[in-house]
């Protein structure tokens, strides 16, 4: 049984942290999987660190980091709901920046709008203090891994 198949059958947040630990860039950004709700939605956290700042005068988290964070939250969600053990590949990804993200932790949750055989459509939101005041929102298409 492959890594993800095993993970899907157990599925606590601590288990899903393995998705982060396997991805060097997610570790570099300091991501973690904080929780998983009854619907199977992962809550991903971006820990604030001075090295992820884009504008030091505000200060604000780098827009690219927020984009990468949202994209990773989408991929983690797809890996938790998809099949097989391979990583989905992004086809395109559109990020809307809604507020500047301050020097605090940020959180993201992804919703799979459609999980097709070859392509999945995902929406993701990120917020800091209040989940009703998102700092960024994104949607993207991913090519789902084929075969076993």
């Amino acid at each position, binding site marked *: 049984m492959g890594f993800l198949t095993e993970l899907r059958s157990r599925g606590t947040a601590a288990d899903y942290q393995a998705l982060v630990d396997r991805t060097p860039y997610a570790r570099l950004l300091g991501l973690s999987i904080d929780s998983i709700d009854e619907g199977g939605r992962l809550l991903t956290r971006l820990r604030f660190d001075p090295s*992820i700042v884009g504008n030091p005068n505000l200060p604000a988290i780098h827009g690219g980091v927020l984009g990468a964070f949202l994209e990773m939250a989408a991929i983690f969600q797809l890996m938790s709901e998809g099949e097989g053990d391979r990583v989905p590949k992004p086809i395109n990804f559109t990020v809307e920046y809604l507020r500047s993200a301050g020097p605090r932790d940020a959180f993201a949750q992804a919703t799979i709008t459609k999980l097709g055989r070859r392509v999945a459509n995902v929406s993701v939101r990120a917020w800091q203090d209040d989940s009703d005041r998102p700092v960024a929102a994104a949607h993207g298409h991913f090519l789902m891994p084929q075969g076993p």
Partner: protein
Amino acid sequence: MAKPILDLVRGDLQLLIAHVPHARLLGMAVVDVKPGECWIRMPYSERLIGNPETGVVHGGVITTLLDQCGGSSVLAALEEVVSIATLDLRIDYMKPATPGLDIVGYSTCYKLTRNVAFTRAVAFHARIDDPIATAVGTFMLGANRAQPAILSAGT
């Protein structure tokens, strides 16, 4: 006509991104800058891997490079330096980056209005006509009241 930002960075192109902590973390280096155009190189690093089985860098790394490049091309297009903020960025991924190779980002700011700047960007290894990813972005001008970070670099 000379652009103020180009005068500012003429002696040292790295000043264009030196004030951005995350650009430093990823080892980005400005290769060239012209009015409304910017080229930035990012070295391959195992820390940037997204898929541990293939060693390919994460798509999000390309996002960061093209966002940085887009913003820098806007700064290079401005007559007067103001703070800018990304409004949106769409990235299309054409092929995985080759493990071990540097990635170059190129962006052009093809339209400036009073409030908004429009950019197109490409990420590639050696040839711009063989893209890893392309992006279009829009940036708000005068996005906040803070002094533009590039002007306070080194102070």
